C-alpha cells in the first residue's frame, strides 16, 4: 500500500476543498469500488502518521487526567488552553523520571506519536519528561531531599513520639487562610477537649520559611509557659511555588530542632514537601490534621468505660473471692461447733463414767452374790439349832452342878453345926453363966490374974454373964504369993 493508498486518500478528501459538490460526488463514485476494513483504515492512518510526522517530537503542556496503572505504565493528557493530547509513558521510561508528575504540573515531554490500531486512537508515547517552568524549583527540591536525607534528617531517630491525648495544640499557619479552620475543625470534631493556639505566620512568598522557622523556635523557647503538647504546621493547597516555603532548608532544620513534636499538614494529598519528610508526623492535608494529631473522643470514652468495667468487675471478683474465703473459714469445724473439743471430752467423760458405773455394778453384783452364797452357807449351818442344843446341854450341866454343890454344902453345914456346938462349949463367957467372972484393970485393960496386976485405987471392971458389968475399986491387996 504505502504511497498509493496515501494518494488515494488524498484524492478522496481533496475535492472538498473548493470544488463543487458535483465533482466530489464524481470522485466518490470512482473510489467507491474500493472497500476497506476498519483495521485497514487504521493501519492506513498509522502509516500516514509514521511517515509524515517527525520520529522524535517534544511537546510542552500541563498534565491532566494522570493515571497510574497497575502495570506501572502511566496514562495522561497534556493540555494547553485549546487542546488536549493523549499521552502514555511506559514503565521503563517512567522509571527514569525523578520527580512526581501530577495533574496541573507543566512538563516538557519527548517521544513519538503512535496510533493504537485496535482503537484507532493516537497517543504521544513519552520517553522523557522534564518539569517545565518549575524545573528549577523541582530540581532544588530534589537536591534538598537528597541532601537532608543523607544527613539523616528524615530518619526515624529524629522523630519524636506524638502525645496520645494532647490538651494544648499550637497551629502555625496563616491567619487568613482556610487551613486554620480546616485544622481546627478536624481536631475539634474528634477531640473537643483540646485548646488550640494559633501562631499566625505567612505561609508563602519571600521570607515565609524563615518566619515559620522563627515561630517554631519562639514557641519552643516559650513552651514552659505555653505548655503546648504538639504543633501543627501547614497550609492549604497551591502550586509548587506556593508551597515552596515548606521545602526550604531553614524550615526543615527548625522542625528537626523543635523539642515539641510537629505535625506537617501542607497542600493536597499529592503534595509532598521537605517539611512533611522531616516532621514527626505528616497529615496529607490540613483537614486530615485532626486524625493524625488527636484521638477520637468516642474511642477514648469507650476505652474509659471499658477500664471502668474492668476495674469494678475485678474489684467485685476480688470481693467475691474474699467473701467466699471468709465463708469457707466460717464453715470450718472450729467456727461451726466451737464447743466440739469440749463436747468430745464430755463424751469421753461420759464414756468413762459409764464404764465406771458398769464396773461398780459388776462388783456390787459379784459382792451381792458372794454374800448370798455366805448367807446360804450360814443358813445351811443352822446356828439357832446349834444354840438350842447347846442351851440344853448347858441347862443339864447347870442342874447337875447345882445338885452337886447342894450336896457338898449340906455335908459341910452339919460339920459346921457340930463344931459350933463344940466351940460354944469352949467359950469363956459360957463359964460366966456358971457363976464365973472376968476382971479387967480399967487403966491397963489387962485381965487381972494376980494381985500384982492391980494397984490400990485402981478401977476394976468385972464382966458377968449376960454382958453385965460391975465397976469396983481396989481397996486392999492381999498377996499370999
Amino acid at each position, binding site marked *: 500500500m504505502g504511497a498509493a493508498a496515501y494518494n488515494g486518500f488524498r484524492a478522496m478528501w481533496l475535492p472538498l476543498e473548493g470544488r463543487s459538490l458535483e465533482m466530489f460526488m464524481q470522485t466518490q463514485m470512482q473510489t467507491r469500488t474500493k472497500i476497506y476494513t476498519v483495521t485497514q483504515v487504521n493501519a492506513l492512518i498509522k502509516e500516514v502518521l509514521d511517515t509524515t510526522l517527525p520520529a522524535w517530537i517534544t511537546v510542552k503542556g500541563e498534565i491532566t487526567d494522570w493515571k497510574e496503572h497497575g502495570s506501572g505504565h502511566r496514562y495522561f493528557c497534556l493540555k494547553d488552553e485549546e487542546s488536549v493530547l493523549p499521552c502514555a509513558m511506559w514503565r521503563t521510561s517512567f522509571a527514569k523520571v525523578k520527580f512526581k508528575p501530577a495533574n496541573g504540573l507543566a512538563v516538557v515531554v519527548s517521544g513519538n506519536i503512535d496510533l493504537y490500531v485496535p482503537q484507532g486512537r493516537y497517543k504521544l508515547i513519552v520517553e522523557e519528561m522534564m518539569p517545565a517552568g518549575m524545573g528549577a524549583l523541582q530540581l532544588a527540591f530534589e537536591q534538598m531531599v537528597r541532601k537532608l536525607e543523607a544527613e539523616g*534528617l528524615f530518619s526515624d531517630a529524629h522523630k519524636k513520639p506524638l502525645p496520645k*491525648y494532647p490538651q494544648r495544640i499550637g*497551629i502555625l499557619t496563616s491567619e487568613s487562610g482556610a487551613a486554620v479552620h480546616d485544622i481546627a475543625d478536624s481536631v475539634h470534631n474528634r477531640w473537643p477537649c483540646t485548646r488550640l493556639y494559633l501562631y499566625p505566620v505567612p505561609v508563602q512568598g519571600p521570607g515565609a520559611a524563615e518566619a515559620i522557622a522563627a515561630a517554631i523556635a519562639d514557641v519552643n*523557647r*516559650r513552651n514552659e509557659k505555653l505548655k503546648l503538647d504538639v504543633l501543627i504546621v501547614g497550609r492549604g493547597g497551591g502550586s509548587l511555588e506556593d508551597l515552596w516555603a515548606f521545602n526550604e532548608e531553614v524550615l526543615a532544620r527548625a522542625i528537626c*530542632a523543635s523539642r515539641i513534636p510537629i505535625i506537617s499538614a501542607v497542600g493536597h494529598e499529592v503534595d509532598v514537601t521537605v517539611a512533611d519528610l522531616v516532621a514527626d508526623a505528616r497529615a496529607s492535608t490540613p483537614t486530615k490534621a485532626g486524625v493524625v494529631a488527636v484521638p477520637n473522643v468516642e474511642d477514648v470514652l469507650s476505652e474509659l468505660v471499658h477500664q471502668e468495667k474492668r476495674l469494678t468487675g475485678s474489684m467485685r471478683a476480688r470481693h467475691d473471692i474474699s467473701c467466699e474465703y471468709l465463708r469457707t473459714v466460717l464453715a470450718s469445724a472450729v467456727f461451726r461447733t466451737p464447743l466440739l473439743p469440749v463436747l468430745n471430752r464430755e463424751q469421753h467423760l461420759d464414756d468413762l463414767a459409764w464404764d465406771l458405773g458398769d464396773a461398780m455394778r459388776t462388783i456390787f453384783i459379784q459382792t451381792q452374790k458372794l454374800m448370798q452364797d455366805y448367807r446360804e452357807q450360814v443358813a445351811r449351818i443352822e446356828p439357832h439349832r446349834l444354840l438350842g442344843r447347846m442351851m440344853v446341854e448347858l441347862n443339864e450341866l447347870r442342874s447337875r452342878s447345882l445338885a452337886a454343890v447342894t450336896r457338898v454344902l449340906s455335908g459341910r453345914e452339919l460339920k459346921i453345926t457340930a463344931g459350933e456346938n463344940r466351940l460354944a462349949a469352949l467359950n469363956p463367957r459360957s463359964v460366966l453363966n456358971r457363976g464365973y467372972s472376968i476382971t479387967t484393970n480399967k487403966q491397963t485393960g489387962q485381965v487381972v490374974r494376980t494381985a500384982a496386976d492391980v494397984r490400990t485405987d485402981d478401977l476394976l471392971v468385972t464382966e458377968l454373964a449376960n454382958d453385965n458389968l460391975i465397976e469396983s475399986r481396989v481397996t486392999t491387996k492381999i498377996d499370999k504369993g
Partner: protein
Amino acid sequence: MTERKYRDEINKLTFEQAIHQLKDIVSKIEQGEIPLQDSLDQYEKGMALIKHCRDILQKAEKRIEKISKEEPPESEKGREDAEPLLGG
C-alpha cells in the same frame, strides 16, 4: 474520705498520666497483686481517675486563642541570627 485524699493529687495529672495510672491500677487489681484493703483504696483511686478523665473530655474548649509573637530578648537575638543550621 479516700476520694478526697486523692483528689488534689489527681487533679494535677494530665489526661495521659491519669489514664496510664488507671490502666496500671486495673491490671494490678486484676492480677491480684495487692492485698484486699489496698485494692479497695486503689479501686477508689481508679474511680477518681476515671472521673478526672471524664471531666477533661467533657471540657469542650472548641476555641482558638492567638499566640502573639514575642520578640526574643536582645541578647538572644544576635545569637539567633547567627545560629548555625542544625548539622549544616
